[in-house]
């Protein structure tokens, strides 16, 4: 039996046995309470139950952080069993005291509620997000079946075997123990996919844990919507229940016996329909529409039934309609069915699945918040409203329920979006999980910078200076300036200069730079100061800077020249031009690059003749400097040099390519775009971005070449993604369907490679090249999968982030990540390929493919290193 089937069976059995015992205990608790204490105590009992759940929720939230969900469930089941045994003993020895019946009633409902709240998290933790959607309804079918069997058994035990009701409490103890023992099998044969407790434990008090959870809740849109939905659901549910119990059933069945018979008959049929819905519809609805949409269906049903009730009772009140018992009864039955059975068949599974988008370690505290705080609060509000509304017209209740249901629909729509977003965010949660710590860091970071600037560790000082620079923290100007004057560390000086330059221009930062220029001895630092001083055009320190024109160091001379040349108050530019040309003629490598740079910065095209000879210099650094200088000098007039720039794209130096790509953007249409399109496959991101920028800028000219490349050549997943990001919107239907077919083919290839991998494991284990071939095959399979995901991303109008997160999730070895990625995919706005990918991952690549000649198939993949491995194997054997 597959692990998934095992997990479904075990959890189904846990729910079945627990519901069986609970159903018997519930009937006994209700009967005994009514008999011994009377119906008047019922509201007090409910308050006690709500209070006990509310208080336990805090401890429960804390324990979910410490212990596994299975342990907690085991603990609750064991306690329930002990409680039932204790109550049974009390009934034997203390049956004269009526408080024991109240105690049993409150205790039973307390354990029943807390176990049902918790068991959802435990079940969900054994499935991925996508599996949970499919199987939860099936598992939950254990509840109605258990209820029906329990009810039937109770009737037989009471009426045929003549048992007394107060002797049957022990059944709950036995069934809870059976459920507890099934947990033992779960523990030994299954592993949770998602852990609900933290691996790294922090010692926090329960209150602190609750505060942390509360902070998460108020920062999480999904949790806010879930809380509001629950709040409205409880109120609407109570209003409708009150309405059909008081305004319909009492009217239709004035006799108590008739009413009891009706309830018994209703229970049998409603439970059967509930079971059928649970087994055959709930999962399908959730799978077909997704979790977000499924959560809108229930409030819509509530709104429809509230509207029907309102119309009927309003027309009846104003005398436009004759009261009909049949119609009232039909309305009552439908309302009760939606309120009770549909709640368990649809609302509960759909709303439980919303927790998929919440990190699993927060499930406990969030559930505690919803069930321990929101639920009792909304019950209290609904009860108060019902007390206040007594005596009003009978259509007021359905009208209120209608308004609240419409509100619930309005909340369910953004809740759907928040769920999809939450799922998406979960895919990247590993790196940025602790938001609250980041917030705390923000508050204290200024004092941290102050401390780090005084640190004895240079890397700490550099980090602090970077913060000052990036955030332009002008209050640190004096500290940075003094540091520049005092330190001997080159890197620190460099960062001090950078920081001072970006801070808003003031006397302070300019004075510090000038003082540093006058006192600095390091010839690597002086050019840096000069270069940065050139950015302050409104201050005139030309006389000081002119002293550096005679400096023996070429870098100092060049920066001093440029600083003066571009200063608005400097007049003798011609002198500087001549000096630079003169030095360039005499210079040797590496100084030539400096003078070429200086000449380019003058931006005078008339000096291009002085640069051209250096474009063919044997040193690549000189070539690059000459090319840069030429580009700077031409001020965008590069049409004449475009072939030279295209040639530069073949250069081995990345920087040369980048410079050429930037310069090509100022040229007209190019004769051939292939060199630029090929750079979209480069491993260096800066090259990809620059070529993409150029292709986008010239899309009118490059579009045709891009489309040709996409459909005629075998290209990498990365190149396909980049090309599609540029032209997808311009593709026609035929081209898009062609892409879909290609992706479909890629998915088949992905499965085929996995079949080859299985064959490979069987045939060549222990072979020298075994691991290497395996790795190559994995990489080929990955490439095919990325191809499919690329097409899904564009067809679904998603972006690169979606592609990256989903592909990382699917390629992860962690099943929870894979499940989250599949769930995000299933919410995407593309169904054809997504359904195929889902099917492929759900089946676990187990589909057997016929591979006749394994080695020939490997050769057919046409992968150079794979071929090399195969030939190597042949020569070795």
């Amino acid at each position, binding site marked *: 039996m597959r692990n998934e089937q095992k997990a479904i069976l075990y959890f189904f059995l846990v729910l079945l046995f627990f519901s069986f015992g609970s159903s018997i205990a519930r009937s006994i608790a209700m009967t005994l309470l009514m008999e011994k204490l009377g119906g008047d105590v019922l509201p007090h009992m409910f308050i006690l139950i709500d209070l006990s759940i509310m208080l336990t929720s805090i401890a429960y939230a804390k324990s979910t952080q410490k212990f596994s969900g299975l342990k907690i469930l085991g603990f609750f089941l064991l306690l329930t069993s002990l409680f039932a045994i204790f109550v049974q003993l009390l009934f034997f020895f203390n049956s004269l005291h009526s408080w024991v019946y109240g105690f049993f009633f409150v205790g039973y409902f307390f354990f029943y509620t807390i176990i049902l709240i918790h068991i959802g998290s435990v079940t969900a933790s054994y499935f991925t997000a996508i599996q949970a959607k499919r199987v939860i309804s099936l598992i939950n079918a254990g509840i109605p079946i258990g209820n029906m069997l329990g009810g039937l058994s109770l009737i037989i035990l009471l009426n045929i075997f003549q048992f007394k009701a107060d002797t049957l409490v022990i059944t709950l103890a036995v069934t809870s123990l059976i459920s507890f023992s099934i947990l033992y099998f779960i523990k030994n044969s299954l592993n949770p996919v998602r852990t609900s407790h933290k*691996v*790294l*434990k922090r010692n926090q008090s329960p209150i602190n844990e609750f505060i942390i959870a509360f902070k998460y809740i108020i920062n999480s849109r999904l949790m806010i919507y879930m809380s509001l939905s629950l709040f409205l659901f409880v109120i609407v549910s109570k209003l409708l229940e009150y309405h059909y119990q008081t305004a319909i059933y009492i009217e239709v069945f004035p006799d108590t016996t008739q009413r009891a018979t009706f309830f018994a008959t209703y229970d049998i049929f409603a439970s059967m329909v509930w079971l059928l819905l649970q087994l055959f519809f709930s999962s399908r609805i959730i799978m077909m529409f997704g979790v977000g949409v499924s959560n809108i269906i229930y409030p819509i049903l509530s709104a429809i039934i509230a509207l029907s009730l309102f119309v009927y009772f309003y027309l009846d009140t104003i005398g436009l309609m004759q009261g009909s018992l049949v119609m009232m009864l039909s309305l009552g039955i439908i309302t009760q069915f939606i309120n009770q059975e549909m709640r368990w068949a649809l609302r509960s599974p759909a709303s439980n699945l919303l927790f998929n988008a919440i990190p699993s370690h927060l499930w406990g505290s969030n559930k505690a918040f919803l069930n321990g705080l929101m639920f009792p609060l909304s019950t209290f509000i609904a009860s108060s409203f019902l007390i206040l509304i007594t005596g009003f017209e009978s259509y007021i209740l359905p009208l209120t329920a209608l308004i609240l249901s419409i509100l619930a629909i309005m909340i369910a729509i953004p809740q759907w979006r928040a769920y999809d977003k939450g799922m998406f965010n979960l895919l990247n949660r590993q790196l940025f999980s602790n938001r609250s710590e980041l917030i705390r860091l923000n508050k204290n970071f200024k004092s941290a910078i102050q401390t780090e600037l005084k640190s004895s560790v240079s890397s700490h000082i550099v980090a602090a200076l970077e913060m000052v620079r990036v955030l332009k923290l002008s209050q640190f100007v004096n500290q940075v300036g003094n540091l520049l004057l005092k330190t001997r560390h080159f890197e620190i000086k460099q960062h001090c200069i950078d920081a001072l330059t970006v801070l808003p221009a003031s006397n302070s930062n300019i004075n510090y730079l000038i003082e540093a220029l006058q006192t600095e001895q390091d010839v690597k630092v002086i050019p840096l100061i000069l270069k940065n001083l050139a950015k302050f055009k409104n201050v005139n320190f030309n006389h000081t800077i002119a002293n550096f024109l005679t400096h023996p160091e070429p870098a100092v001379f060049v920066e001093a020249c440029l600083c003066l040349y571009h200063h608005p108050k400097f007049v003798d530019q011609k002198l500087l031009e001549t000096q630079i040309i003169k030095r360039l003629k005499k210079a040797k490598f590496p100084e030539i690059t400096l003078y070429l740079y200086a000449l380019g910065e003058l931006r005078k095209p008339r000096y291009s003749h002085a640069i051209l000879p250096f474009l063919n210099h044997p040193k690549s650094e000189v070539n690059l400097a000459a090319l840069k200088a030429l580009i700077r000098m031409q001020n965008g007039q590069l049409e004449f040099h475009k072939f030279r720039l295209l040639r530069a794209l073949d250069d081995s130096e990345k920087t040369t390519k980048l410079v050429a790509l930037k310069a090509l953007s100022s040229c007209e249409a190019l004769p051939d775009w292939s060199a630029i399109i090929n750079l979209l496959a480069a*491993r260096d991101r800066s090259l990809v971005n620059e070529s993409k920028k150029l292709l986008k800028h010239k899309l009118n000219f490059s579009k045709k070449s891009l489309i040709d490349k996409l459909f005629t050549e075998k290209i990498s997943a990365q190149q396909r993604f980049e090309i599609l990001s540029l032209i997808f919107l311009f593709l026609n239907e035929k081209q898009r369907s062609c892409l879909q077919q290609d992706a479909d083919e890629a998915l088949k290839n992905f499965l085929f490679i996995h079949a080859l991998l299985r064959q490979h494991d069987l045939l060549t284990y222990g072979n*020298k*090249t075994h*691991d*290497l071939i395996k*790795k*190559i095959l994995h*990489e080929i399979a990955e490439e095919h999968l990325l191809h499919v995901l690329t097409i899904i991303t564009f067809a679904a109008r998603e972006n690169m982030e979606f592609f990256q997160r989903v592909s990382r999730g699917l390629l992860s070895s962690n099943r929870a990540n894979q499940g989250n990625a599949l769930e995000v995919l299933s919410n995407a706005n593309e169904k054809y390929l997504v359904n195929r990918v889902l099917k492929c991952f759900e089946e676990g690549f187990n589909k057997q493919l016929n591979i006749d000649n394994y080695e020939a198939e490997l050769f057919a993949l046409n992968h150079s*290193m794979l071929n*090399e*491995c195969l030939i*190597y194997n042949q020569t070795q054997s």
Partner: protein
Amino acid sequence: MIPLEKIIVLNQVPLFSALKIEDIHKISTIASEEAYEDGHILFNEGDIGDSLFIVVSGEVKIIKQGLDQPVAILNKNDFLGELSLFDAETRTATACCHGKCTFLVIEHNDIEQLAHEFPEIAFGFIKVLISRMRNMLSKSS
């Protein structure tokens, strides 16, 4: 050793497990094959570590000062000084060839240059180190 054999050996080293075949191929170009006779000392305890040794054939004894017996004996596909590719800390033991040995040796400077040129290689190392750190953390907790 032909280039493919170098790649096969490098593929066994856990530090390179997160790298793509293309990157392992690049590393193979900076890995040199070195052969030593019995008794040759690869490095002494306290030396500055600057290379990774992967045992291709033979045995290497790892000896700690003050101990009579070797603390470990390394065989084919074992490796020494993995972390010296990242820092220049001193060796914590002496490594001595036992019988004729062949190694693939990668120098700290070469790998650093390669990682600068191809950041994916550095990222691959980070992935492996992070995964080790995670394992250590989960074990310690």
